[in-house]
């Protein structure tokens, strides 16, 4: 089934996957720096941080494409259930 890979939705999803891979690779450093904060990840970097998602959105929504941005609250601990 065809699903155009160059469609804007697909392009932003690929960007999201890239951002997420970057987040996964740097989670320990991010936890050391931003524990409990909300961060915005765009083009594989943290472009803003704030104490709440609304505040974060306010800071970055004019600067970056939100469809390509991950809004994420940095956890204090990560469990390995199995």
């Amino acid at each position, binding site marked *: 089934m065809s699903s155009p890979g160059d469609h804007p*939705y697909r392009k932003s999803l690929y960007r999201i996957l890239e951002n997420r891979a970057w987040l996964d690779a740097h989670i320990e450093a991010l936890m050391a720096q931003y524990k409990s904060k909300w961060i915005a990840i765009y083009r594989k970097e943290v472009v803003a941080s704030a104490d709440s998602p609304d505040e974060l959105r306010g800071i970055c929504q004019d600067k970056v494409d939100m469809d390509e941005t991950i809004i*994420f609250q940095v*956890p204090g601990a990560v*469990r390995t259930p199995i």
Partner: protein
Amino acid sequence: MTNEVPRFPFRSLRDWIVFLEQNDQLRRNKKEVNLRYDLGYISKVTADTGGPALIHENIYGYPDWKIFCDGLTTFQRKAWALGLPLETLAASLAGVIQSGNLIKPVLVDTGPCKEVKIFGDNIDLTNIPIPYTGKYDNPPYITAGISTIMDLDTGWHNIAIRRFQLKGKQRLCDLIVSYQHEGKIFAKYVRAGKPMPIAIVIGADPLFYLLSQMPAEDNVSEWDYWGAFTGEPLQVVKCETNELLVPAQAEIVIEGFVDPLKREFEGPFSEFPGYYSGCYYLPVVDVRAVTMRKDAIYYYLYMGKEPSEGHSMAHLMYSAQILKQLKQLVPEVRDVNVLSTWSFTTAVTVDRRAKREGLIKKLAMAAKAIQAGALIKNLLVFDDNVDIRSLSDIIWSFSVKFQPARDFLAIPNTIGAELDPSEPSLGHGPGVSSFGVFDCTEAGPPYDEPFRREVALPPKSDKALEVLRDLGLNG
């Protein structure tokens, strides 16, 4: 060509869709929807209002796809899917579950799920329209993927939905928790140092979906119950890249392996208690093949605070399995009804003539020992003259029969649900809970004082009935 109206048993999602449409229980949405922003809310409102099943036919970025959702959110539709009468649904379901007439699936050569086959580097899971659910899940999750795995020693096939976060074109994370069957089976692969084959089925008949939310006992394949309901075996085909079996009529099958050692950062996800999960290091599905129908329909399940299609399926099927498994240990048990949150709060009745000292404690211990009882946190016990399908009867009985100092039993440090937001504040972190039993049964005889007796209904006189009839009310 026959134009037969499909009836029970529904052998595919297609049969189910035609049936629902003919019974005015399905709407087609032709307005464009964005996977990122629109589908979760629509499903939530549909479940909250008892709305119809939906098919979204105009998906931004996915012109050839359709998305089906919310088929099993009402009792009527669940009764149709199980082939049971709505009026006696709980009792009829309990009857089939306890009948033991299980039928193994039958292997067939091929089926519609094999119309398209994609392997290895040609796979790109972003070709499949995967809706977002919660506002902060990112990337999105496959929520209606029925994980099919096989026990390392016995060939026991287990089927259950897991959350699968999209992590790459050929990569998903799998939330495997130790008390569920996937955890018990995966632990064997970890000990043996072997990768676990997995097949993820997206889009199947409604009975298959209900069975994916039924916590059967160890070594019991949920799909053997497909035959118990229908009288015929489920038709399955072999996977392309492993030995697993999957329903021949499925819409989409994702095949892969879970490495015993590899873990990847995952989460958070909007989970069934209505709270986000934490973040985890989770096992990873390396995808090796995708097979599907030419015009595959994606199945989407909303997840978050109840009600939802997932809760609707799980509460019904958990009730029936808890009853079956509990009765084997405590024959005095009469009925079970999951009230909330995948059985966090569950009501049970006991034969009030068979009550004896210690029975409620035996019941409490049994509830935590059975496979289906893993998630029970608050067990409410009633006499069998209480209608535990009526919330007002439950609250009334709790109010007038229960004495906190006498009738409450708490057991600290039990195995937790992992996702219960009240667990971390106990101080042990998630994964450790406590268990409470609320004995709402009535004190036994003698009923030698007026205040020991429930108020008798006023007499149902012929005149009273006549007046009610004239008023258009049922007596």
